[in-house]
């Protein structure tokens, strides 16, 4: 049994930098594997719906007619299942978290290219962005 068992640790801590970060002024420590949020490369999406089927929380909604890909950030549990299953690797995992929200929002919707036609001349036009913005 002793007294002052913590004293050594306390003195050492006095001469060290703080162990905490001033988040969000300074970004948090992240590794290359960190799961922050899902991002999409709209050019390569072929609207196959694999991500929608594999999503355990139903956060992803793919509209083949309107050629849009939508994710509800507040439903997404960042499990990486969609990124693993994506056949064209258009989904990637960003290492940083999405910023905090003050209201129930977080639905991110983007027009995507859709399946590539074989004839290179007939490129598929992206879904009209103006209409989406109004929604």
């Amino acid at each position, binding site marked *: 049994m002793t*007294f002052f068992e*913590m004293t*050594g*640790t306390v003195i050492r*801590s006095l001469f060290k930098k703080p*162990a905490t970060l001033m988040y969000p002024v300074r970004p948090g420590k992240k590794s290359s*594997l960190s799961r922050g949020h899902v991002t999409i490369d709209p050019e390569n999406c072929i609207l196959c719906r694999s991500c929608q089927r594999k999503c*355990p929380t139903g956060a992803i909604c793919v509209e083949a007619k309107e050629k849009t890909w939508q994710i509800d950030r507040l439903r997404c549990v960042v499990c990486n299942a969609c990124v*693993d299953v994506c056949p064209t690797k258009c989904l990637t995992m960003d290492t940083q978290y999405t910023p905090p929200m003050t209201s129930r929002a977080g639905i991110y919707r983007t027009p995507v290219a859709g399946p590539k036609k074989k004839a290179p001349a007939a490129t598929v036009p992206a879904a009209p962005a103006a209409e989406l913005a109004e929604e």
Partner: protein
Amino acid sequence: MSKQVIIPFGPQHPVLPEPLHLDLVLEDETVVDVIPSIGYVHRGLEKLVEKREYTEYVFIAERICGICSYIHSNTYVSGVEQIMGLEVPERAQYLRTIWSELSRLHSHLLWLGLFADGLGFESVFMNAWKLREHVLDELEATTGGRVIQGVCKVGGVRRDISPEKLDEMVKGLKELEKELERLTNVFLYDRSIASRLKGVGMLGKEDAYYLGAVGPTARGSGVPIDLRQTGYNVYDKINFKPVVEMEGDSYARCIVRAKEMFTSIDIIEQCVKKIPDGPVDMKVTGAPNGEFFSRAEQPRGEVIHYIKGNGTKHLVRHRVRTPTFTNIPPLVKLLKGVQLADVPVVVLTIDPCIGCAER
């Protein structure tokens, strides 16, 4: 006999991060009886198994608890693998063992911090959580998640750890071990902590056994139950001894957890030395048809996952018995006879995790 009064403890209480309600029957300041009640955070996760595919359910099994998350997914996955008769690659088994021990390490550090906070020793609380941050960084660097790792899947694991990273991890843990010694010395040798905890909340060996105590609660009372000795994952290839203390008081349970952290570091080092090369996952086809009781040692004790499938993608039944649930009868026993002022500390010594217990 003096008049009895009932004092409600919880579901909102400064020492409890989660809602557990205890009706304390007091005579003067002494607790003579306890009526526990749970049911504040029931989420019905077991029922969800009928609506999700068995491969997707791993994510939900992992979210049963926010602290022992990894071991829940590991237990569920190994149960499904046993039903389907899958031979998981050995490297994956070693990786699972490493992550299990890292998760035990961070859980015990979290508990030591919360416990010190419960005692009013706030600097130790901050110090323990600072060390825990190192373990969480290791978990994030190898799996991608801090507390929800999401790295287990049926048939193996989703991430491999490179040999360089493994060596680096062991080096980091060696340094952590020195810091940990300084931290645990406070619990092992400091007079104020010992005088606060010794002889408080006694649970005898017989009682611990018959009331179904598990994990550090049982081992603190001299019952040498450690599910890791059954040799799931690759624990049968690792040399380790479960930490057992004979006294059965709050101090003994604290010491068990403090010493177990060093066992965890030792197990990780042995795993890194023995880990073979090879694939980390395998192709899984078909669906589980049959039933299995999968058992594992969580930081808080033994967890049992009962899994029943009927050959379709959706399981029929999934039942989890978590360590906190079975530690509640011992908690009632060890609260009898303590002073009202000691109740928060004694409740903390079983490491209650109500999110687990109610699922």
